[in-house]
Each structure stands twice: as structure tokens, then as C-alpha cells.
């Protein structure tokens, strides 16, 4: 099985590190992974996105135009990537700051209001883990225990004291994700 996804939002939202944790988690369950960031000046304060591929086979192209899953965290990314989701695929988004909600009728749409939730529980820094939790609820391709292992691997030692908070945030995401539309 192969899962091709893109995570897109603002620089500073933890888009790249969320992708990295996901990739590491899949590695923990012996999958092949690739993590391909957009890089360069657009990273600085602008939009940031990362393509992550998790697969049971050797990965061919790490560069994709269409995705099984798009995790969208701002309006610009919605405008850019809603159309790139494969029919029957998944679009997961944070409603914060979204003025035009997804319109496709041939894809599964889920919403997680992670920005609001992070602010409410005072954990703005691990907003991205709430989003990750939402993703894990919808897709069962990565096991939660492997995500914890992935967190340990991808976070430098000096941040390991934050792992319990990260786990808590993942669980919040599992709880608050909402289904908007399903097609299969």
C-alpha cells in the first residue's frame, strides 16, 4: 500500500516537522518513506509544504502532482491543493482563517479546528500534533504507538520532555476531528 500526501500551510505552523514525524513513524513499522519539502525563500514567512510518501514498496518519484491525502492549513494552500486530491482521496483541513471551504464533491472531507483547540488548551506550539491526531483517526495506516516512537526519533533529546504533551495533543486531535463529507 502506498499513501501519497501533502501537508501545506504557513511557515511556522510545524508543517515540515509534522511530515517528518509521520515519515519517522512509518519507518518504525518498516515502511519506505520519502519527505520532500518546498524549500527556499518561499519558506521564510510564506507558505510551506511537504510531500510525504509512505509505502510498502520502493518509492519511485518523490515529486508528485496529485495526492491521496491533502492536509491543508491555510487558504492559499486550499486554493492551490484542493484540486490536486485524487478522486476518492482525503482532504483534511483546519477551518481557522478559511474563507472558502472545500467544494469538491468527489473526495472525502474532514475538518479539525486545531488552531482554536490549541489556543483553548494553551498548547499553541503543538498545534501540528492535533492535526496529526486527526489524520490518524481517519487513516489507520500508521499505528499510534509507532508515532510515539517516531516522535522520539525525530525530536532532539532536549525536547523529549515535551513528548507527553505531544501525545496529549494527538489524542485531542483524535477526539475533535469532524467528518464533513464522505464519498466511499
Amino acid at each position, binding site marked *: 500500500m502506498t499513501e501519497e500526501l501533502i501537508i501545506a500551510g504557513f511557515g511556522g505552523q510545524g508543517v515540515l516537522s509534522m511530515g*517528518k514525524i509521520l*515519515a*519517522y513513524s512509518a*519507518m518504525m513499522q518498516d515502511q*519506505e*518513506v*520519502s*519527505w*520532500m*519539502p518546498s*524549500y*527556499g*525563500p518561499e519558506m521564510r514567512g510564506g507558505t510551506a509544504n511537504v510531500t510525504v510518501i509512505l509505502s510498502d514498496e520502493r*518509492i*519511485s*518519484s*518523490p*515529486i508528485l*502532482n496529485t495526492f491521496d491525502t491533502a492536509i491543508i492549513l491555510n487558504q492559499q494552500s486550499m486554493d492551490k491543493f484542493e484540486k490536486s486530491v485524487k478522486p476518492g482521496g482525503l482532504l483534511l483541513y483546519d477551518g481557522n482563517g478559511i474563507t472558502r471551504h472545500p467544494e469538491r464533491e468527489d473526495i472525502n472531507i474532514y475538518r479539525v479546528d486545531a488552531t482554536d483547540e490549541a489556543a483553548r488548551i494553551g498548547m499553541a506550539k503543538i498545534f501540528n500534533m492535533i492535526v496529526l491526531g486527526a489524520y490518524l483517526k481517519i487513516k489507520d495506516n500508521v499505528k499510534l504507538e509507532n508515532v510515539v516512537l517516531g516522535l522520539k*526519533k*525525530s525530536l532532539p533529546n532536549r525536547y523529549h520532555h515535551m513528548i507527553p504533551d505531544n501525545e496529549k495533543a494527538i489524542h485531542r486531535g483524535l477526539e475533535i476531528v469532524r467528518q464533513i463529507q464522505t464519498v466511499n
Partner: protein
Amino acid sequence: MKKELRLMKGNEAVGEAAIRVGADGYFGYPITTQSEVLEYLMSEKPHERTGMVVLQAESEVAAINMVYGAAGAGKMAITSSSSPGISLKQEGISYMAGAELPCVILNVVRGGPGLGTIQPGQADYFQAVKGGGHGDYKLITLAPSSVQEMYDFTILGFELAFKYRNPVMLLSDGAIGQMMEKVELTEQKERRTTEEIVKQCPWATTGKPKSRDHNIITSLELQSDKQEELNHKLQRKYKQVEEDEVRYETIQCEDAEYLIIAFGTSARIAQKAVKEAREQGIKMGLLRPITLFPFPKKKIMEMTQQVKGMLSVEMNAGQMVEDIRLAVNGKVPVEHFGRLGGNMPSSEEIIEQVRKHF
């Protein structure tokens, strides 16, 4: 033993491989698409791990000449840069080829010419495989197409560099340098002792004992006849490399009617195109040159028996396609498809090109 796996960027993998293979020195200068090599090495404190020297030079020119000095003294040295910086290094590379010094040079190619773009490119193919600087010389050129190969080819690069006393270039690109994939790490090798260096490199300037004449590292020979003989010697070496060191990978070529030839990131995309084309009933195969010099000419010639056409997919305006045409010598049509300016081809475009041309 349990495999040691790590998720790494291509650039970081080169740094880790340099430490683990027991390299003695890295000398580099920051430039986008490859600065992570120097950053990674600095953060890893290789002087504590193995005693390896890592230095940020004042320029790419200084960096390659530091590599020259280190290599001339028998040490395993590596440098890295991206296209504009590699242009600056050409002076030192030519001198190293002339003085027959081993080293590894990583080029994480970006789109050009000039300052160009920081997005990935493959437009430095000619520069890498045809010499690059002044004079008749060749670099052994390896084209990694995954993060694992960035790691493995750094190690292989040193092996070939010392085997042939010749600079080895890793021709990578911004995509492979920046992306992260799973890497299986090898065990830490001990750095060679001075005694081992003296034994392995009797030509090196390690300090003259009473027992031998002084060693000289130079690319200068003012007498034409002697210079000609030195050139012939280099050419014999390159011929040997062409006979013994060709490396390539074939994917679904057994029954292929159309052959894609691509290296590096283009080859990864082409691999996807092969899969998708076959789903559409087109029998496509991929030949991925791993060594760009020596170029897999014989294998490509052999494939003319079988295929109706070949498509060279590159992130440039058509460079490797010339070498393919030379190899094929008119036997089958050879076309080129390239994206420029930091853009990458898509698998859909590749299939469309095959439909269009053949």
C-alpha cells in the same frame, strides 16, 4: 546485527557517510541546495567522533584548494557545492585531475545559468562529464537518485578516487539534497593512520624520510613531449575506467518497446512513468545510468536491438541525449524531453512525449 536506520536529508547523508567512511577533511562554503552538508558536519562534531577536520572556507575556490592540499598529502578529503560554486571550483578540479589527486566533490545542482534558481536542475551534466575546467581530463561521475545513494556513493566515490587517483564527482540535484528518506548506515571505519597513508599513497607529501626521494605534487610539465606523455597516461586511465567501472540500473527493460534513459531525480520520476505507462498498455522501460562517466554506452547500444525508440528525460535543454545518440549511432530514434529553470518533469508529461514521438 540490527540495521541502523535513519531518516535523513540527502545532504546530511553525505556528511554522515564522510564521517563513517573515515574521511580526514571536509572543506566547503555555504550555498543554497547544499549548505546542510556543512551545517550537519559542524553539528556532528566530527573532530570528536573521528578527528576529521571540517572547515568553512572563505570561498569555493579556497575550499577546493584545501581539498587539493589535503589530497596531495594522501588524505581523504571532500567538498560540496551547488552549480555556481562548482563553476568556481573548476580551477582546482582541473589542477587535481592534472596532478592525479583523489577527492570527492558533491554538486547539488540547481537551475542555471548564472545565479539561476535554487530549484533543482541537471544542466551541469556537460560540465561534470566532459571535464568542466581547462584541459583534457575526466571526472568519474556518479549520479545518486536517492538519499541512500547519496550515502553509498560518497563511500564508493572515495574508493574509486583512490583506486584511480582521480577526482570523483557526485552529480546530484536540489531535490535529492533536500529530501529525506530512510538510510541504512554502515559501521564507523577508523581513519587511516599516517603509516597506512604512506603505504597506500607512496606518492603523497607526507614528509620526506631519508629512505626516499622527495615527493612532488604538481600538474606542471613545461616540456611538450613529457606533457604529451602525461596526457596519454591520463587518457589510458580514463579508458580503463570506461572498461571497468560502468554502472547502471535497468527497470522493466526485459520486454520494453520504448526506453526512457534518465538519471538522478529524473530517473525517479521516470520510474513512476514506466509504471503508469504499463497500466496504459505501453511497454516502457527505464535505463538509469549510475555512472555518467563512464557512460553505459554498450548497454544502450545493446538496447537498440529491442526498442523502437529512446527518450532521454533530463532537467536541462538536452545534454545527456547527445551521449545517447553517440552510443546509438543512428540505430533507433532518440528524442529528448527536458524541463528547465528548476522545474521537474512529471510522469504524465513523459508518457505524453513517448506517445508523441514514437
